């Protein structure tokens, strides 16, 4: 009972079963039951849906008729009859269009053109072609085992093929790696039973291990042999070179007329052009690219097919190595395509950059034509799955099944460009949705994939450019925007109060002091007693009192006009005493304003003094140069200040005659409010004074700084008067009422009020600080 295999589960089923009894998958397609094909015979039924081309019909019927007419049925070998019978029932005859390598069409596909560049030359030998096949050990082992285990009756051609031990030499030739193409092929010495003609061919290896040359030679021998057989003319091979198995078959083979080459621009091979029906020519020519270099397959029933059958069987065995069961005769016809597929496979392997691809479950063409993505459409591989019940025999056990379908991992899919993914999806969907409506591809879905550039019918997916953020991020962004906007807005300054607290306090203190001073000056309140004379004032008085009468006294007026009241109060008392002693006063100054300040003092003193007093004085003017000028003046007073402020010869005055240096002075009095000026006089002039005493009349603010010069032992400053109190004491000591006496009461009152205000301020500040600390402590406790 004929069995067919389920395309889904691969288990055997009866030939007439429409549904697999194991997996309930439909074995026979529904379209096989169409009315158009219902009336066809069994032979046509296997090609339903294809609109079986005429050439295939001729291949199955016409040669048979011719062979029946030419000879009886016994003249054909068993294997050939079996082949024909199997070919009629074989579901594997999925692709009846076998490309011819002799078509000579220049528009052949690239893969095939590269395989056989010169297709016009007939095949010469099969051996070089097969020698380029890459050996597949597993497949070889399978088919060898399968051949050995094959116990079916063999035809004479098969027996002769076994005698040739084609697998051996073929395997030897296959064992040559592809890389050996660059080297000279080694002679096949290990093939002991090679036919003579094959051995002869081996003795002359091709000059270059080029695949195309080998193919070319294979085509030559094949053409020669086939031409000789088909045409019935004399063989170009000598009789001794003809193998025995071939020679034995020569008598039983009826020459068959060579089909007329049909070259109507459809790129069809000659043999195919002769058998194809004109009705399907356009469809085929429009959808099929026929390879050019495929060796011509002679019509079935010809003895020339014996050798091919042997080779085809070998190829079929190789390709069907994955089959668990041995190949049967019914697959022989499909094996013809197997060796062609192997040749294509070899050619594809010789190409430089061969991409790996994932094969589908289809058996023969998908595996044998690796570059199917460009040259071979998918329908070639899908036809047996969808149309032929016998296809599962190859589809389920093919080498493609051993290779798992490549699936991109999820992480790699995530890395795929979105645009490319979208395009690909569109292309896949478009190609898979299209169904062929006519021709041999009618009913097939996605047989001819369109190019992505022209098949993209939909727009690429649009992606939103709007940010996808969370509500929290929105809130943060809004706050950030408000913050930035607030930075740009000008802030109005707080209005300044008309009267600040600091200004108010300052005004109050000023008013208090003004009132106290005015009231004290007007009323003389408080009527304070005169201060007691201190030891310092007493020492100063003694020093001044010791000045000889009529001597020269130098007074340095180095105070600023703002301190004139304080300094001049003490200086006035000294001037009064010195005037009483008849001393000549020499005024100098280290300040630019000193000369005019000296004149102002003398004028003021003369106004304040009784009119009977007269004062002898000389204003030498300004001593330029600061400390250096003082040093120069101390070294050479007459040279530094030769003229007085009036421009007269200063040292020509009768009181100053004989004056050479500062040592000629009776006393040097320095009146200043600046401690630096006082120190400069001490440092620069004192060392050059000799025995001349130095007396300081200072302001109250500079007296503490100069005090060490007075308190030191020995004293550098012999006498010191500081402030208004010292002046009052000196006035008391000399028994006169000077200007300092009128300052004393207001000064004391103002000083007392000032001290009181300082104390009040200190108490208030302390109280406010304590209150603030208590409040802060209360707040701290409240927070706790």
């Amino acid at each position: 009972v004929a069995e067919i295999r389920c395309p889904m589960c691969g288990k055997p089923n009866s030939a007439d079963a429409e549904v697999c009894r194991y997996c309930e998958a439909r074995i026979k397609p529904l379209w096989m039951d169409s009315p158009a094909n219902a009336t066809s015979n069994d032979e046509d039924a296997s090609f339903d849906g294809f609109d079986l081309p005429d050439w295939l019909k001729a291949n199955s019927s016409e040669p048979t008729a011719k062979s029946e007419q030419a000879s009886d049925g016994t003249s054909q070998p068993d294997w050939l009859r079996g082949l024909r019978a199997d070919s009629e029932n074989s579901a594997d005859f999925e692709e009846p269009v076998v490309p011819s390598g002799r078509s000579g069409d220049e528009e052949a596909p690239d893969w095939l053109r590269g395989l056989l560049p010169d297709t016009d030359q007939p095949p010469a030998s099969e051996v070089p072609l097969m020698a380029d096949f890459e050996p597949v050990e597993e497949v070889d082992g399978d088919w060898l085992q399968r051949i050995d285990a094959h116990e079916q009756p063999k035809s004479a051609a098969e027996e002769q093929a076994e005698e040739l031990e084609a697998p051996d030499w073929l395997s030897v030739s296959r064992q040559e790696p592809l890389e050996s193409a660059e080297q000279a092929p080694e002679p096949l010495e290990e093939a002991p039973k090679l036919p003579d003609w094959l051995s002869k061919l081996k003795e002359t290896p091709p000059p270059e291990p080029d695949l195309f040359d080998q193919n070319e030679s294979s085509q030559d021998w094949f053409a020669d042999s086939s031409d000789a057989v088909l045409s019935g003319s004399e063989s170009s091979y000598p009789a001794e070179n003809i193998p025995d198995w071939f020679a034995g078959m020569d008598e039983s083979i009826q020459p068959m007329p060579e089909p007329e080459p049909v070259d109507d621009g459809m790129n069809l091979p000659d043999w195919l052009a002769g058998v194809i029906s004109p009705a399907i020519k356009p469809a085929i020519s429009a959808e099929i690219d026929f390879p050019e270099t495929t060796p011509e397959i002679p019509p079935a029933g010809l003895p020339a097919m014996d050798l091919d059958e042997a080779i085809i069987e070998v190829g079929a065995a190789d390709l069907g190595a994955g089959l668990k069961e041995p190949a049967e005769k019914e697959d022989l016809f499909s094996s013809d395509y197997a060796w062609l597929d192997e040749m294509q496979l070899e050619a594809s392997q010789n190409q430089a950059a061969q991409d790996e691809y994932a094969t589908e479950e289809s058996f023969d063409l998908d595996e044998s034509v690796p570059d199917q993505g460009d040259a071979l459409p998918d329908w070639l591989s899908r036809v047996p799955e969808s149309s032929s019940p016998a296809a599962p025999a190859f589809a389920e056990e093919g080498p493609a099944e051993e290779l798992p379908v490549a699936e991109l991992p999820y992480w790699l899919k995530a890395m795929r460009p979105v645009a490319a993914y979208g395009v690909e999806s569109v292309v896949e969907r478009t190609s898979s949705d299209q169904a062929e409506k006519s021709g041999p591809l009618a009913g097939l879905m996605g047989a001819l994939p369109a190019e992505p550039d022209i098949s993209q019918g939909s727009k690429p997916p649009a992606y939103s450019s709007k940010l996808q953020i969370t509500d929290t991020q929105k809130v943060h962004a809004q706050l950030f925007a408000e913050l930035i906007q607030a930075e740009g807005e000008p802030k109005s300054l707080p209005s300044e109060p008309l009267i600040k607290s600091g200004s108010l306090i300052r005004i109050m203190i000023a008013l208090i002091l003004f009132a106290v001073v005015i009231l004290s000056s007007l009323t003389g309140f408080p009527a304070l007693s005169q201060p007691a004379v201190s030891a310092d004032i007493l020492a100063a008085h003694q020093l001044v009192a010791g000045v000889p009468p009529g001597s020269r006294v130098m007074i340095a007026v180095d105070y600023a006009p703002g301190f004139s009241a304080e300094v001049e109060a003490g200086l006035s008392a000294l001037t009064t005493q010195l005037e009483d002693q008849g001393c000549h006063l020499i005024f100098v100054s280290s300040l630019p304003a000193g000369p005019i300040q000296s004149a102002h003092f003398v004028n003021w003193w003369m106004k304040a003094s009784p009119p009977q007093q007269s004062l002898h004085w000389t204003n030498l003017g300004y001593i330029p140069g600061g400390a250096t000028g003082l040093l120069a003046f101390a070294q050479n007073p007459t040279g530094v200040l030769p003229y007085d402020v009036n421009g007269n010869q200063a040292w020509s005055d009768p009181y100053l005659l004989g004056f050479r240096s500062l040592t000629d002075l009776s006393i040097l009095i320095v009146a200043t409010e600046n401690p630096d000026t006082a120190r400069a006089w001490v440092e620069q002039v004192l060392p050059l004074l000799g025995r001349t005493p130095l007396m300081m009349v200072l302001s109250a603010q500079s007296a503490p700084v100069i005090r060490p010069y007075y308190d030191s032992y020995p004293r550098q400053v012999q006498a010191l008067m500081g402030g208004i109190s010292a002046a009052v004491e000196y006035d008391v000591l000399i028994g006169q009422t000077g200007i300092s006496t009128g300052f004393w009461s207001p000064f004391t009152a103002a000083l007392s009020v000032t001290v009181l205000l300082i104390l009040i301020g200190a108490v208030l500040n302390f109280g406010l600080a304590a209150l603030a600390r208590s409040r802060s402590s209360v707040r701290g406790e409240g927070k706790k």
Partner: protein
Amino acid sequence: MTGMELNLVDLAGGFVAFFLTLFVLSYALGDNALFRLAIHLFIGVSAGFVLASAFYSVLWPQLLRPIALGTIDERLAVFIPLLLTLLLTAKVSPRFSMIGSPVVAFLVGVGAATVVGGAIVGTLFPQALASMSLLDVTATIQSGGDIGAALLNGALVLFGLIATLASFQFGTRITHLPSIWPLWKLVYWIGRFFIAITFGVIYAGVLTASLTALVERFQFIIQFLRSFISPGL
């Protein structure tokens, strides 16, 4: 000048002084235009007066007059000062300021040497000797002073000096002598106490001088107003 003219000058001077005093005292109410007017007036008058004083006190008698009216020796004597003065005037122009730099260098160098020398001779050594002599009993006896008071005064001055100098140390914590650190801190605070007293005394002197100036100004105002109210006073 007659007596009438003098009186008018004094009267005008009195009015000017009166109003300028009020302008300055107006600063008690805050910064105002009257105060600024008085200040600007004082600055301008001071600058003009300094220029006039420098000319009449320095340039004319010591430079121009010897050149114009002096003898040959006096003229030769002022040649170098005149040259240095001309070079110094080159500092006015930025292009030729380098010419006056040697003169400035000379002035600065001489001034620094003078100040440093005077400080050493006039202040450092004498003050050091005076500080050491505070504890000199012999000197105290010779001067007829109280030995106990002199020693106490000397000890107080010495301790104050040491404490004040110690308070200016910006050192780190003495880790290798932890037992001394509390004592060092005590000396540090005593030194700061002495410094505070010194600043207080200086502030009191400044306050006293300011009050004296205030009293003098108010007495001037009162005297000026009295001269209008009762000219006989």
